[in-house]
């Protein structure tokens, strides 16, 4: 279990992490979600005791990282696949880490086998592709067979095959009962990888909960109804306490919130209203995520602002407190 309490980290005048508190439960994959520059990597470094927080603390199984005895047995981490001496072989890179925590050398060959690098174990790590480097980093994280694993943006820059491999691998680790804490700036990736989510923006906690809850909250599910007898239907729907609004793109349609297709269909049947279309609309995860973190994106581009503007005007309206964009 990882427990962060009031973590605050300042680099010069930049507040990278601001009073951040969250817990990561054992036996689950927890996604650490936030836009680029939100403070995810900084938080990872704080967890590992590499950087000192200005305030707050973070505990792993009740202890600060720097007090762990032979920490590779407790926590394995891949923060950056390029943290390797380019002229050292993959095996040597793992050998010294194994030696430092009294891990038997045969474990080095085991983890190399596990990530599929056995054949290139004696090649210099500097010549590895990004995918191979990620595998080497994961091998390092697994050396001590730890119960807690941290991965910082493990799929960044990988090809689809590599992404698929890492995703399955993390599922496997969680299935073995380990705690997996994995950061990403892609909600679509986390939606299929993580069971829990910790969402941050500009160093602050935005929300913490299960992925299903988050997606449900962040994306409003609506139903589109098209009918030649729209005014009659609208009146009846409004009377049932559903939210109803006109479809901007289609004069003959309504967007109904808070109702299932069954409810609307039955209501229309009872009224004798003809329906030309009755279709559920699922909000795009990325749009919802962008709206949620729109206020807290560190580096805005003109294109991103344009997308936000579109997002704000399309029919996937989110709760009011989430619609503010960073303009």
């Amino acid at each position: 279990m990882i427990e962060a309490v009031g973590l605050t980290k300042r680099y010069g005048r930049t507040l990278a992490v601001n009073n951040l508190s969250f817990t990561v439960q054992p036996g689950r994959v927890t996604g650490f979600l936030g836009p680029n520059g939100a403070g995810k990597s900084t938080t990872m470094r704080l967890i590992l005791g590499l950087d000192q927080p200005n305030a707050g603390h973070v505990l792993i199984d009740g202890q600060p990282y720097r007090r762990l005895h032979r920490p590779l047995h407790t926590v394995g981490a891949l923060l950056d696949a390029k943290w390797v001496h380019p002229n050292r072989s993959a095996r040597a890179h793992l050998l010294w880490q194994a030696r430092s925590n009294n891990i038997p050398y045969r474990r080095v060959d085991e983890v190399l086998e596990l990530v599929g690098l056995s054949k290139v174990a004696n090649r210099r790590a500097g010549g590895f592709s990004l995918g191979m480097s990620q595998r080497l980093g994961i091998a390092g994280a697994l050396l001590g067979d730890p119960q807690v694993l941290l991965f910082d943006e493990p799929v960044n820059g990988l090809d689809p095959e590599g992404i698929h491999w890492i995703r399955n691998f993390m599922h496997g680790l969680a299935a073995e009962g380990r705690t997996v804490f994995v950061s990403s700036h892609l909600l679509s990736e986390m939606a299929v990888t993580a069971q829990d989510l910790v969402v941050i923006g500009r160093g602050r906690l935005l929300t913490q909960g299960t992925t299903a809850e988050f997606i449900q909250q962040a994306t409003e599910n609506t139903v589109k109804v098209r009918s030649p007898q729209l005014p009659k239907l609208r009146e009846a729907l409004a009377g049932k306490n559903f939210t109803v609004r006109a479809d901007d793109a289609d004069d003959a349609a309504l967007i109904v919130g808070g109702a299932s297709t069954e409810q609307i269909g039955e209501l229309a049947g009872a009224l004798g209203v003809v329906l030309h279309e009755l279709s559920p609309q699922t909000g795009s995860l990325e749009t919802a995520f962008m709206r949620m973190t729109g206020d807290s994106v560190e580096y805005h581009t003109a294109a991103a602002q344009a997308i936000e503007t579109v997002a704000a005007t399309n029919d996937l309206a989110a709760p009011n407190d989430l619609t503010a964009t960073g303009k």
Partner: protein
Amino acid sequence: MTLLAVERIKLFTTRSPWWCIVLALGLTIGFAAMISAVPGHDFQMTVNDSQSGYQFGMVVIMVMAALAVTTEYRFSTIRTSFQAVPNRTAVLLAKTAVVGLVAGVVGEASAFGAWAIARAIRPGPLMNLDTAQAWRNVAGIGLVYLVAAVIAVAVGILIRQSAGAIAILLVYALLVENLVQIIPKVGRTIHNWMPFTVGDHFLNAGAPLAADRAVSPMPLGAWPSLAYFAGIAAVLLVASLVVANRRDA
């Protein structure tokens, strides 16, 4: 012991230390061979003369020692190191010990190698290791290399950048210490308290001098000179450890 083994693996699984060791040995032994092969019969080679190239090897070993730290920062493996062993003082002391030990061994090998080759080319009574001074002049080189390597490691920890650390070390050891002598009046006194100058005095104190070399009175004797040189290295090392513990990795 574990951490010493870790640092040994780290040092010898990259190529640059090997190159530095070969280069240091080649430079010092080659220089001794060169000066002893200079023609002319009236020239009596001394033990001290055979070691006159030791600074070339020392500088190369200092580069090796600084690189042992700065490449860890350059490639961020220092973070992996501190992640594996959060006790930073222990990690850096182990690194200092391994690098210092290698420097000491290379120093001894290069010193005895230089003496042996010079004696083979130009034998003479002044080439015998028959006085305490002669022994100190040869065997002491390993100690000077060791202390110099500790200084280089400390500077590497403080500066963290290869180019910066090496530039500072080389410019300081090769130029600054000698150039302070230009300062009017006090320059000479300051020079006599500069660490590498004092370290050099530990080797040369009491050596039979060639006729063209001036005798400069030094404030400390041979062994106090070594203690002073080592003391400065220790102060730098402690300062670098304090900084490394406070700083974000």
